[in-house]
């Protein structure tokens, strides 16, 4: 079993322990800082901090910088880092865990297009049980006040409608039949999570 490396912790290791307590994230303690994750990351060049650096910052207790970095929202969840890591650390899942902390505390980079997009989609799934692509995209561009982006995508949407890939009115929300059941289980998570500490 690899031995955890000594780390310089500005906060006494509090943030490291917080992240490591998430399901599957305890292995972050054995990162050897080799940079294999950053080397295989398709979007590292756009990130405030590369994945390797982000994990060093977690160990150093740089909580705010980590939570507000765009790195979290540029992870495309391709899992290349996770399968290449010589220490077998599930980095992609840890990235999700950190995003959850940032969302719960309302800490985002500015702007955070990824956070807005995922927030709209996750909201729709919890409300209707379905994703309506046209509605997510329309609300996303309106929220960004990006009319050019909206118009640009309308052209694409028309091509999709013509091919039967989108409904004629692509912004009508699709719903499951048992929406009541869905809301029951969502409410159950909200009321029972604190007691069980389950999941995130």
């Amino acid at each position, binding site marked *: 079993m690899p031995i955890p490396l000594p780390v310089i912790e500005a906060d006494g290791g509090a943030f490291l322990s917080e992240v490591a307590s998430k*399901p599957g994230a305890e292995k972050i303690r054995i990162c050897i800082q080799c940079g294999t994750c950053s080397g295989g990351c398709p979007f590292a060049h756009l990130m405030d901090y590369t994945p390797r650096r982000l994990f060093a910052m977690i160990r150093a207790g740089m909580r705010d910088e980590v939570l507000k970095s765009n790195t979290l929202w*540029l992870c495309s969840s391709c899992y290349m880092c996770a399968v290449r890591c010589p220490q077998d650390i599930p980095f992609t899942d840890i990235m999700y865990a950190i995003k959850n902390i940032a969302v719960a505390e309302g800490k985002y980079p500015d702007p955070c297009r*990824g956070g807005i997009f995922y927030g709209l989609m996750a909201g729709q799934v*919890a409300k209707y049980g379905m994703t309506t692509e046209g509605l997510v995209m329309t609300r996303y561009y309106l929220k960004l006040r990006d009319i050019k982006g909206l118009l640009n995508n309308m052209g694409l949407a028309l091509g999709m409608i013509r*091919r039967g890939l989108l409904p004629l009115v692509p912004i009508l929300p699709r719903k499951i039949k048992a929406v009541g*059941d869905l809301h029951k289980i969502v409410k159950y998570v909200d009321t029972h999570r604190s007691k069980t500490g389950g999941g995130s």
Partner: protein
Amino acid sequence: MKLTFYPGCSAHATARPYDESFRAISRALGVELVEIDDWNCCGAMASQSIDRAKALVIASRNIGLAEKLGNDIVAHCSSCYVVLRKVMKAWQTEPETKALIDGALAEIGLSISGKLKVMHAYEFYTNENMLELIKSKIKKPLRGLKVASYYGCLAVRPFTDIDDPENPMRLDNLVEALGGEAVPYAMKTKCCGGALIAVEEAASQEQFSKHLECARQEGADCIQACCPMCLLSVDTYQGRVNKNLGRDYNIPAFYFTELIGLALGLDPAELGLKRHFVSNEALIASLA
């Protein structure tokens, strides 16, 4: 053979040809698909990014519904497949998450037994027995067709028990079984960037172009994929890549299920072949 089918949201939208061809080849090969009644969206990357516990519980409702049907579950969307497997893994390895899932599902009269396997459609249709069955029913072999197989991320990662996570071969073997020629494709498991399609438009289109360029350099006649996002990136966006990056790609892209359907001699209309952005008519005509 009977399977429980989880189509996912894209089946009725961008991935309609995937859904149509998957159902068509299943009928032709004697595989009965029983769709989960009133299934809900898996939440993909979005729900996990916002709230993992809630995402897993919402997705677990589908497993609970599938338990009533009893058979193993098949999903053709790679994202749906990974999310459903993640639910099962969390249920099996995280006692607190299991308690949350079990408690929530009990509220709506559902439960998980842990006995159902979650499969990717590509896994199901590329195992050795299935390849033999397909071979025995081929009516129009894809003779001379050079195919670049694009596996993408989620069909081979993070669950690596189906194929190699960086150099998988099952789709390549399928091409050979169908009578075509599998061309080497260095980008076969590289991320398409589809997750950032609306977030980082320029960077994602740059990424799409790398996949198209690789296929062109290998002399591929077409690309086959097993994920709706992968296909969106190389087919739906091919015109945009050409326009925005000054390229002139003209590479048809298919779902692997469409190629199986063509080889089985099924009607192109039944396979949804006309729903693609890049025209494939000339290529299909050249096969006949």
